């Protein structure tokens, strides 16, 4: 009796320990999920906080005179400089003047030039216009440069701050929505740099990628699921596709460099080559998704079609493919989203150059949105890091939209047989 009692006591004592172990084990799981989720939260907040500032840009109200002489000399920045001298008439020596001119962006002159091009009657007129400031002043206005730091430690001098304060007192300087970010290409000056060029590059590459990978992927999937006999050859294709899905993306870039650029002599940095490389990369994703969609179509559909005298091709084209299409489209959108975020293979084929012009055709030199992020992330200016984060916000925004469309498509057309 005593023996069995001590045994149950032992079990009792062990039980508490076992329950503690149980709780601990459960806690590990919660901690693991918390780590992953909080990392995501920290990353997105850090980037969001950094990037949100770039959607605004400091502008200064300058009273400029479109005088004939400057227009004739095509010296638009000269008009800006003259306006600056008028705003701060007591700035005397050359060095101070040069510092004064540096308050404004070198793009201010282009703004004036564009205004004049649109409306030639401006010649000789005096106007008050909001023009972009330089990136250092922009950073000062956004509080990224500490006014209380010793003068040598910050990128703006006390004198420059005093000029900005004069503007502030007159309400002549303010943060305005940064349209340039969405309407211009890359630039060495952060305040002039925009993502439109990179966005167009991505758009052009993705169109090529879609036009190649969507039909090819679906045809391959249809062949493998509906037509292919089970033999060595189709086994080989299957193994191939599964392996290609796991090949590092940079290897596709090496393929593009060696085959498309050096062998077929296609142009460097062109969206058409980028699209081709991305198409090869997304092909496995699309094939695998399309095959799953085809497999989900029940055999009864096919048998009914065969029973009505349809041929194999008719059965597939008229009945199986339409039913599998939503699933295939979902897979394709997810593949495209992957391609949109991919940058490593594009680095290999030269889509990583500094390109100011906005690409208009498939053979113009271009970059892509993620590559632009990579390029800007390398720039030392604080204003560029802000723009990098803003570009990431735009990119992630696009990815979220694409994935949401895929989810909605799946929910809407999902059929249970």
């Amino acid at each position, binding site marked *: 009796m005593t023996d069995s009692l001590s045994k149950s006591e032992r079990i009792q004592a062990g039980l508490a320990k076992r329950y503690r*172990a149980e709780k601990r084990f459960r806690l590990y799981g919660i901690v*693991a999920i918390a780590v992953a989720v909080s990392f995501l939260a920290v990353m997105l907040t850090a980037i969001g906080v950094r990037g949100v500032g770039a959607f605004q840009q400091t502008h200064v109200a300058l009273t400029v005179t479109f005088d004939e002489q400057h227009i004739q000399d095509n010296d638009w920045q000269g008009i800006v400089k003259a306006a600056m001298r008028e705003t701060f008439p007591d700035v005397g020596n050359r060095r101070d003047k040069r510092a004064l001119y540096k308050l404004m962006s070198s793009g201010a002159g282009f703004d004036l030039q564009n205004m004049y091009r649109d409306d030639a009657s401006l010649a000789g007129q005096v106007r008050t216009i909001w023009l972009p400031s330089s990136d250092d002043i922009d950073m000062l206005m956004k509080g990224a440069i500490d006014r209380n730091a010793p003068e040598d430690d910050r990128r703006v001098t006390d004198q420059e701050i005093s000029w900005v304060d004069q503007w502030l007192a007159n309400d002549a300087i303010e943060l305005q929505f940064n349209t340039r970010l969405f309407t211009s290409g890359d630039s060495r000056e952060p305040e002039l740099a925009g993502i439109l060029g990179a966005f167009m590059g991505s758009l052009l590459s993705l169109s090529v990628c879609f036009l190649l990978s969507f039909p*090819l992927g679906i045809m391959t999937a249809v062949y493998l699921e509906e037509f292919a006999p089970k033999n060595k050859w189709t086994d080989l294709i299957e193994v191939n596709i599964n392996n290609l899905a796991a090949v590092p993306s940079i*290897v596709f870039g090496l393929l593009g460099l*060696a085959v498309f650029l050096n062998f077929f002599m296609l142009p460097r940095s062109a969206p058409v080559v980028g699209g081709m490389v991305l198409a090869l990369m997304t092909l496995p994703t699309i094939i695998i998704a399309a095959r799953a969609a085809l497999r989900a179509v029940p055999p009864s559909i096919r048998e009914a079609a065969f029973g009505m005298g349809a041929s194999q091709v008719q059965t597939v084209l008229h009945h199986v493919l339409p039913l599998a299409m939503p699933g295939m489209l979902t897979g394709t959108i997810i593949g495209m989203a992957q391609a949109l975020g991919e940058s*490593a293979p594009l680095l290999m084929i030269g889509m990583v150059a500094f390109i100011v012009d906005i690409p208009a055709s498939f053979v113009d030199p271009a970059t892509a949105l993620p590559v632009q992020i990579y390029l800007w992330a390398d720039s030392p200016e604080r204003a560029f890091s802000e723009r990098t984060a803003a570009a990431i916000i735009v990119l992630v925004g696009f*990815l979220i939209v694409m994935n949401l469309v895929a989810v909605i498509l799946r929910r809407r057309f999902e059929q249970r047989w």
Partner: protein
Amino acid sequence: MYVTPARRAKKAVETVIKGILIASSTVAILTTAGIVASLLFEALRFFGEIPMTDFLFGVEWSPQTAIRADQVGASGSFGAVPLFAGTLLISAIALLVATPVGLFAAIYLAEYAHASVRNWVKPILEILAGIPTVVYGFFAALVVAPWLRGTGEAVGLDVSSESALAAGLVMGIMITPLISSLSDDVINAVPQAMRDGSFGLGATKSETIRNVVLPAALPGIMGGLLLAASRAIGETMIVVMAAGLAANLTANPLQAVTTVTVQIVTLLTGDQEFDSAKTLAAFALGLMLFVTTLVLNVIALHIVKKYREQYD
């Protein structure tokens, strides 16, 4: 009038369509062939100039090509061991982070979590998988690396601003969803009868998971880990942005190391003539990368497939 046995339009059309389908399915084969051919061809040219043993076993990597022919150190040295070591170091850190996090997350989601929790957490983990790697790279270089450096300074450690630890940590989070979703699948594939048997013997849930479910799912989990390792080895943007450029043979995660992918990118971006040993070296590195990841993938897919058959 149009339908005569002699025309057999249907048969002709079917044959043509089938031909097109077969042709498109060969693109996958052609891609692999293209990768192997281009990598092998350029790598062989590289090994024509630099002996293969120097490349595989050399411990000094400084691929500068000389501007003048008589310049000192004109040939450059192409010992790739520091690159392999750096790649392994960063991948190992990534796996050390991702394996516990991914595995425990998968166990919790598969065995403990309510359906409502699952429905929320799984998509969030999928977001992690969907974020472009360039974003991770930016975060690693701009937030994680300076933070590690600052923390290191505070406790008196000298942490490089391009430390392997920063790149590895962030890469670990990147591959976590890969491990968790694959493990989730295999854990769910373990038959309920096995759990019920264990519960019937009086085991607690965690004892069941540790002693019954995990051993049964182990091959599948191993397959998932191998796939994750291959992803980590081939990952480019995080290391390009957050790891170092200079070759450094060290096992210290606080120092800067460089990786195979970083060197491929630095060798091939910018303008240079295509025939130099420097650019060809990138293809030799690419070949190494391709072969390594291919072997890992083949083993992983084989294990996962075999495991699936076991319970089907």
